[in-house]
């Protein structure tokens, strides 16, 4: 066969093959996100992994989420919370996980002097934001008055795995903290199975897992809670928080489940002292914590506290947080670097 020669430089060969390799691989880097989602915990829950081998663990993490949902939801008849609530003041034996979650939740009850209180179940039932509350009568003041004495975290007696409600009328509602606990368990599950890079998103409660493979930071956008209602609010984001490794970025806000009637906004963060939606000058609190369960407890507690007390608490404890007031003022604490965006 006839051969022919072309003049070619060695470096040119290297460049040509490098270019060919890069061009053919840029459409499929191997780090394309794979996201799995399920409707759980009364919201959309998703887990994102970045390699095909980790896909089964994303599904496994959501299975875990579903199991915890059944354990902690008030509506789940076989769950631990239902068993405690229906025990009529008798002792109930619960799983290790339920006991651990209760212990943490009660700690936040004590820390906040009852501003965060998991015994708010009777009040939560009156304010059922998943029903068509906007179209029907609001809970009556007398019903709330009657339910308030059952709200007191000190009514929960926890001894190891044994739980008893000292007041049989008390009802637990772990909705304000269970999501964080579950997110932590999902993050541990992923790490234990060798997943080195993942994102957990439980209805806007974010947990980053591991380091990003590109060596950069995780970038979590903090949504502007006023974007929905303020005509002159042009930004959908307050800013972007950058975190490294496994961290929780959790938010509590008064706009996600709320409605306005006669000029008053009714939202789902209830004040255990009054039985009504918390009267607060904060519309959103986002905190960065090691554990998501702490993030949920702290952010909810701070919304109820209001800006002055919340800022004091967060600064004293060096907790990175972004607080958004109803007038649009943004306060940051704990040296957080929340870069403002122009979106």
């Amino acid at each position, binding site marked *: *066969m*006839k*051969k*022919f*020669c*072309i*003049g*070619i*430089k*060695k*470096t040119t*060969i290297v460049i*040509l093959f490098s*270019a*060919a*390799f890069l*061009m*053919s691989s*840029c*459409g*499929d880097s191997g780090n394309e996100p794979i996201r799995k*989602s399920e*409707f759980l915990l009364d*919201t*959309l829950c998703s887990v994102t992994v970045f390699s095909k081998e980790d896909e089964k663990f994303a599904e496994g993490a959501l299975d875990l989420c579903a199991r915890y949902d059944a354990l902690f939801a008030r509506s789940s008849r076989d769950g631990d919370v239902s068993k405690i609530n229906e025990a009529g003041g008798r002792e109930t034996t619960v799983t290790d996980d339920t006991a651990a979650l209760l212990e943490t939740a009660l700690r936040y009850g004590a820390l906040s002097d009852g501003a965060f209180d998991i015994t708010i179940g009777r009040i939560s039932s009156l304010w059922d*934001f*998943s*029903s*068509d*509350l*906007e179209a029907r009568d609001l809970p009556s003041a007398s019903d709330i008055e009657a339910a308030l004495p059952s709200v007191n975290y000190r009514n929960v007696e926890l001894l190891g795995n044994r739980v008893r409600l000292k007041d049989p009328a008390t009802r637990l509602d772990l909705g304000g903290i269970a999501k964080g606990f579950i997110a932590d368990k999902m993050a541990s599950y992923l790490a234990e199975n060798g997943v080195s890079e993942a*994102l957990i*998103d439980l209805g*806007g*409660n*974010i947990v*980053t897992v591991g380091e*990003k493979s590109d060596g950069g930071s*995780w*970038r*979590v*956008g*903090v*949504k*502007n*809670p006023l*974007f*929905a209602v303020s005509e002159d609010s*042009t930004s*959908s*984001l307050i800013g972007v928080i950058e975190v490294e490794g496994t961290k929780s*970025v*959790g*938010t509590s806000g008064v*706009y*996600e*489940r*709320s409605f306005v009637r006669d000029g008053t906004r009714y939202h789902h963060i209830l004040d255990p002292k009054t039985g009504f939606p918390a009267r607060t000058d904060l519309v*959103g609190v986002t905190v960065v914590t090691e554990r998501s369960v702490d993030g949920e407890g702290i952010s909810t507690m701070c919304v109820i506290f209001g800006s002055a007390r919340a800022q004091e608490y967060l600064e004293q404890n060096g907790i990175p947080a972004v607080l958004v007031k109803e007038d649009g003022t943004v306060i940051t604490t704990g040296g957080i670097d929340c870069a403002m965006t122009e*979106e």
Partner: protein
Amino acid sequence: MRKAVKEMRIPIKKADAILIAVLLAVSAAGGIVAARAGSFESGANLRITVGGELRGVYPLTEAREILVNANYENRIVIEKSEAGKVRVYMRSATCPGKDCVHHAPIALNGQSIICLPNRLTAEIAGEESDIDAFAY
């Protein structure tokens, strides 16, 4: 002083040369397609799913109202300002609770609105983003 580059001569069969040319052409074409897929303007598309099944993909380049019927009815609006800014919101829904209607408008890639009773998700997708997740 500029260093002299040594030139070497490599014998190449005609078929080899053609193969290299074809490979380069295919690789380049693949690269262009991939680049275009990630370079949408104005926030890419709105992907709507119900119960995990894709119901529609709508470009955000034009304003419109989308009616989705399943267990309940959702009216989703793609709104575009004179300045060209896009935002998407739920105008109305027949579901109980109406959390989806009270949800803040979305405007960035990766943001979504869900209607839990209707198992509906409306998500902005398709554009490259430097934000990994949204806390709210």
